[in-house]
Structures are given as structure tokens and as C-alpha cells.
């Protein structure tokens, strides 16, 4: 089936099985910044941004992206370099496997209007990290929210 949507700011039409997972489709397009961790919606490594909201691409059937505005880490890194800078300056990463998901989640934070450290923490709670202990990630997101 032909599915069209906007990917990283450019319209695209794909001939895909609409029941395949957005994660597999996106990685199949060589956009491998989107990672698979748990595969069941829990860890956030596979986070993409759909119409401004964070979405787990591992439990997202690609048919439901039809006519939507989809962003991956690759597109957001170009579009929001200052967000990447916040993560770098705060050392909000160690091994890096969770980092694309953390950054995409941060990019989509306006969808819930989280402003206070407590709200930011609640919003980011679904993006797991085994390395940093979270504080540096939260500082990066707080900086990002403060700038914007």
C-alpha cells in the first residue's frame, strides 16, 4: 500500500505494508539513529516525533503515520542544533544508545507544555537510561526549555 507523510520536513511516499512497524521502515530508509531497545513501548530508545508529539516507533504501525508530520533524530539534529548543544554542554549522554530517543523526546516537550523541573522529570520519565543517572539529561532538557 502507498503511504505518504512528511519525513524530516520533506514529503515522501512509500510502498509498504501498512502493518509494518515505523521503527523498521525508518531504519530501512538508512535513518539508523532511531534505535530499538525494549521493542514494547517502555524504554524510549525508538522515539520519533509525530505531529509534535513523542511516539514509540516500535509499537507504531506505519499506516497510522499517513499524512502526518514525522521527525527523526537525523532531521531534528539539523533543525535544532541548540538542543544538541544542550545535551553536549551538560554531558547528557554516556554510551549513547538512549541519546537519540532522549533528544527527540526533548524536542517534543512542547506537546505537553512541561516547564518546571518536576514537570520535565515526569515527562522524561519514560525515556530510560542505564548510564547517566539522569541528572545530566534532565539538566540538558531544562536548559532547552529555558532557552525556548
Amino acid at each position, binding site marked *: 500500500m502507498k503511504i505518504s507523510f512528511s519525513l524530516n520536513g520533506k514529503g515522501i511516499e512509500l510502498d509498504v*505494508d501498512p*502493518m509494518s512497524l515505523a521503527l523498521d521502515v525508518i531504519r530501512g530508509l538508512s535513518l539508523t539513529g532511531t534505535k530499538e531497545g525494549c521493542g514494547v513501548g517502555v524504554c524510549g530508545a525508538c522515539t520519533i516525533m509525530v505531529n509534535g508529539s513523542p511516539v514509540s516507533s516500535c509499537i507504531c504501525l506505519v499506516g497510522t503515520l499517513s499524512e502526518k508530520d514525522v521527525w527523526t533524530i537525523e532531521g531534528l539534529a539539523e533543525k535544532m542544533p541548540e538542543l544538541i548543544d544542550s545535551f553536549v554542554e551538560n554531558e547528557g549522554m554516556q554510551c549513547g544508545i538512549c541519546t537519540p530517543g532522549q533528544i527527540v523526546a526533548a524536542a517534543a516537550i512542547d506537546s505537553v507544555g512541561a516547564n518546571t523541573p518536576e514537570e520535565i522529570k515526569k515527562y522524561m*520519565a519514560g525515556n530510560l537510561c542505564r548510564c547517566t543517572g539522569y541528572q545530566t539529561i534532565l539538566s540538558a532538557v531544562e536548559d532547552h526549555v529555558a532557552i525556548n
Partner: protein
Amino acid sequence: MQSTDTEFMIPSTVAEALQGIGREDSIFLGGGTATALLYKNRLIEPSRVIWLGNIAELKGISITQSEVRIGAMTSVAEIAGHSRLAGLLPGLCAAASVIGNARVRAMATLGGALAHADPRQDIPPSLIAVNATISIKSASSSREVSLSEFYEGFLETVLEPDELITEVIIPISDNRSSAYIRYTPTSEGDYPTVGVGSSLTVASDMKTVVSAQIVLCGVGAVPMIATEAANSLVGTTGDDQALRRAASLVSEAIDPQDDERGTADYKTEMSKVFAYRSLKLSSGN
């Protein structure tokens, strides 16, 4: 991409969606969070999927003097973040805001959250506690069902395969307050050991309780409605002693099983503790 035989329909009206479901093995798809996991593990293999995401008439929240109507395709995140709704239905908004994580809340829809019928889900008890009704349509008929009569068993509801939930209707009253609170033993986004939705409606003196509801998730095959416990509050002023007595009675209404979220005994004790906390929130004290 490997291709399967599943047909994917994207109707733009309810009428079209209802026409499409006529075939055997067809399913409706909301946000897809529950369905994707089932499909990924090949626990379901529908021949046709009817995605409801393009149907404007199924989206949105409307509020009048006497009721709130929420379309089935309204996202859980929209409910969680709706400030006017938070004032009218604090229990529902609290339940919506603790589901899973920000991504699940953004994707999941109210219709999916109700029809999935996992007995640990947070929204059903919060809505049953405020006497919600759901509107159901098929190509040939339509009906309204009280949410308290919607659940039949684990993942089972009274919905026929060709029936669509179109909206949820919740009566509003100045004299009613509601709350939802849950306990998760593991990570914050996990399903709860127990969750308790409650409501208290008081007489015009704004003190005497005229009706109450206590509904629990996680402690039975369906949301468990603790009618006797709730009724014990009628005629009281919702004072601390009355709330504690009612909370202790919920053990009569539940049927918890041992699992990784606790033993049946533990869940029973936690049900009493959280029923009390939920009632305390509802009472505003």
C-alpha cells in the same frame, strides 16, 4: 518490506468505518499501542484493519452545564492536559496522566483505552466512578451502555465485533467530587498493583454524602465495583472514620490474584490503603 494480506482502510467518516467492518476478522484501530504489540507477536492476524485516525467527528472534548462528551479518538494526552476537564473530572485526568509514559499517552486513544479491556487499566475505574456511559454504533444500530456494565472478563467486553465506540458521556454535577490514585511497585510507567477511582456526591448542605462510588483496577478480571463499601458512606459526612470504614470494606468486592505485582493478600491490603487515599482525595480533606 514484506507484505501481508492485511488490508488497511483509512475512512474519514463513522459511516464509512462501520461499512468497512462488515467483514470477518476486521478490527478497528485507534492509536494502535495495544494492537501493535498483539500483532507483532502474531496474537492477532486481522484480514482488515480500519484505522480511525482520520475521522474528525470522533475527536474532541465538549463540555456543557450538565455533561462532558469525549470522542473515542481523543488522545489520552489531550485528556491528561485539559485544564477545564481537570476541574470537572479530576479523577479521569489523574488516571490519564499516569498511563504508561508520554509516548503511550500521546498515541493511545480513549476508545482504545476502554475497548482493550486489560483489567489493570487506569481509565475504566476513573470513569465508572463518575457514572460514564458510552455510545456504541454499528452499521445497523446504535446504543448507549453504562461503562459499569461494559466489561465481561479479561480482554472481553459487551462490544460486538462490528460495533464502534463513538464517544463517552459523563454527567456533571457541582456536588460531586472525584479522584483516582494508583500504586505501582516497579517503575512509574508500569501497570499498577491496584488503582482506585472514587467519587462522592453530597446533598445541598454540601456535607451529607448522598451517593458514592469506589472502583478498583488490578484486583480482578474486570474493573471491580465496590458497591457496598461505597454505600456505607451514604448519610455520613465523609469524615475520616467513615472513609476508613468504607475503605476496609473494599476487600469484599475484589478478587486479586498472585502475580509479579504482589500476592493476593498484599493486593487486598493495598486496595484498602489506596481506597482510603482515593476517598480522602475525593473528600477534599
